[in-house]
């Protein structure tokens, strides 16, 4: 390389000199022209290059930036740079009432919004010391499992796309669309539902929800075998994933990895089983595990988890019985019974008629509860649920007021993403993509 250096120095043109940084009245201007790798590489390590991947890159799941140091095509060091999607949700929650917080947290991990809502609300309910009605609990389970199916389908779809299996993407997004249609029908919104509320649910399910859910399960059951045909047994897919992104169980524990990553290493740790919440102890389902601890095992686990979720959904349909979906306590439950009107969702006409025409006290109560919110007794709790990506934990602190002192989210994507270097250093560049896809980070959750 030394000859190149000399030639480069000799032939450096006036333009190239100008292309370096220069001072202007507006400050320093840097001009990046490229072609200067040999100035960055020392003479002993000719092949060592540092590449910057992302933050805008189709295979980095949003705005994740990877800085990779390469020797040829081997990754010697990987660094993860995050923060491009930081929106200050935790800080914002401190300036809103406990109920309003739901609309914020649902936007964190945007592929698993209902898990965020459920975990947050379970935490608030633990602080309040209330238990939500049985119907609301099982509807939460139903919604979370539908959401898990959708989230895993996106993982298969984007993971397939990143590894070149474009049909996997179209198939995955097609099925996920079914999930979103169903969730829209059940909750009113495709994503960021804000449907689960401290104390229960914002409203009951529509009348013919059972038929819709049953139809969806039938459709999914007919389509799931396609994934086995398309991906599971496909030689290219297996060769891209098998033995790649290896992270054994001790590495998982040290790095805090949970969810499919931990279960692919052989530890059957699932919050739904070990610390049941929202009535999961009544459901009959398996926790699939593998021992290979590689990307292929994680892929297989996600497919199996979709099957298990469908089982839970079927059971939930049978378990959900008529009843209230909100706690009795009128100091917590929002007074309005929401309904769909000609101009969208809002208060029922009966409620508006009552508070505007008949009962001054109802109006005051409505106003106070909606603007001021309810008081949450002082204290702190940690509530975790098993999200599609692992342990989603909420640390909530109250000082007795109507707004949180602190809402901290232990997002599984944030923690699991730390495994990227351990999974991919020493491997090929192409395997970094497979490893990141198998972590399945959602940057909205990582950066919050």
């Amino acid at each position, binding site marked *: 390389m030394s000859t190149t250096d000399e030639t480069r120095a000799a032939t450096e043109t006036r333009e190239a000199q100008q292309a370096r940084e220069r001072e202007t009245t507006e400050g320093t201007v840097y001009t990046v022209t490229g072609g200067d790798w040999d100035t960055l590489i020392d003479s002993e390590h000719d092949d060592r290059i540092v590449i910057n991947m992302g933050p805008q890159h189709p295979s980095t799941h949003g705005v994740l930036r990877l800085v990779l140091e390469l020797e040829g095509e081997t990754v010697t060091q990987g660094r993860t740079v995050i923060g491009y999607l930081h929106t200050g949700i935790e800080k914002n929650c401190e300036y809103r009432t406990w109920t309003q917080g739901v609309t914020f947290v649902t936007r964190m991990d945007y592929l698993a919004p209902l898990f965020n809502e459920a975990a947050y609300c379970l935490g608030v309910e633990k602080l309040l010391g209330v238990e939500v009605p049985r119907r609301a609990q099982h509807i939460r389970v139903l919604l979370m499992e539908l959401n898990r199916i959708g989230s895993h389908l996106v993982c298969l779809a984007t993971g397939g796309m990143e590894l070149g299996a474009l049909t996997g993407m179209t198939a995955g997004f097609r099925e996920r669309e079914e999930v979103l249609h169903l969730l829209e029908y059940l909750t009113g919104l495709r994503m960021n539902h804000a449907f689960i509320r401290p104390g229960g649910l914002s409203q009951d399910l529509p009348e013919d929800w059972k038929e819709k859910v049953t139809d969806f399960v039938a459709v999914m059951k007919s389509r799931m075998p396609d994934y086995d045909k398309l991906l599971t047994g496909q030689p290219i897919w297996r060769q891209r994933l098998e033995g790649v992104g290896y992270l054994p169980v001790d590495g998982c524990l*040290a790095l805090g990895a949970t969810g499919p990553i931990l279960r692919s290493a052989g530890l059957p740790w699932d919050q739904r089983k070990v610390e049941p919440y929202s009535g999961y102890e009544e459901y009959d389902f398996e926790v699939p595990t593998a021992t290979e601890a590689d990307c292929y095992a994680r892929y297989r686990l996600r497919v199996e988890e979709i099957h298990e979720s469908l089982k839970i959904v079927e059971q939930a349909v049978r378990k959900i019985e008529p009843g209230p979906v909100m706690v009795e306590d009128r100091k917590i439950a929002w007074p309005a019974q929401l309904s769909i009107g000609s101009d969208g969702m809002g208060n029922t006409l009966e409620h508006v008629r009552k508070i505007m025409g008949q009962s001054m006290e109802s109006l005051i109560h409505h106003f106070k509860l909606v603007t001021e919110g309810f008081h949450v*007794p002082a204290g702190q709790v940690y509530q975790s649920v098993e999200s599609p990506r692992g342990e989603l934990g909420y640390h909530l602190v109250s000082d007795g007021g109507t707004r949180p002192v602190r809402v*901290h989210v232990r997002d599984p994507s944030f923690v699991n993403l730390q495994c990227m270097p351990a999974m991919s250093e020493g491997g090929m560049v192409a395997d970094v993509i497979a490893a990141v896809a198998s972590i399945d980070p959602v940057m909205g959750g990582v950066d919050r």
Partner: protein
Amino acid sequence: MSEPTGTSKDAQEPTGGAQSSAEASGPATAEQRTRGGERPASGEVEQAADDAGSTVEGGTRQAATRERSGMFGVRGSGDTSGFGGLRLPGYAPAPAERPYGGWFDELADDLGEALDERSVPRSAIEQVTVDRGEITFYVERDRVLELARILRDDPNLRFELCSGVSGVDYSAPDGAPVTRPMHVVYHLLSMTYRRRIRLEVALDFEDPHVPSVVEVYPTADWHERETWDMFGVIFDGHPALTRILMPDDWEGHPQRKSYPLGGIPVEYKGAEIPPPDQRRAYS
């Protein structure tokens, strides 16, 4: 987390009284291992509480009063009802008394023994609080790393997984003095025994140093970076304590209570809606 029965669903007016938050010990006590005279924390607790006697709430570790502003956002003068001058007592978690209930006693005994074995003074744990089925150990700052190692390695404890490290700023909204308002919170999980505990360290903003636990729990790396970024807590011994969510050249630590939320007023149908942190506060 469903086993502990002796929790304080009803201890909901934490005015700093000597209310035991573990009163309903009930039948669970029969199966607990009782070891005569071993009270690893409660003795030291009172002592520690006395040391920190300069708090707002007499004798409690940290307490932040909440100013109750008037119903219509009136501050200062202009209030004739007296309603705007209300000051609510600050929140100070009450120390729990033996028996804690459930597995908490067994855990506290095991932890006490493990501390003795490694000749760590038991005063490393300043206070134990049991609330809502969760146990919190308020620990001395300089002992965090040792404690984390003991909690991870002791065969009776085995907290293999660190769920997270984060901060809580307990500064009073009305500016009342609070002793050591900056708390660093560690959530530990024992997969062997299926237990969760919380460690909490209280700091001053003038001296926000705490030993890093990265060498015991490598997962704490990003958590500690985030806590530094958001609260300005310096984790001594961290391999690379840099900002993680905010830009590298950012000034200030956004999640401190002294840091404003920011925002601009929004006009909607002719009315001006102030930014969220300048709207009426009702609490």
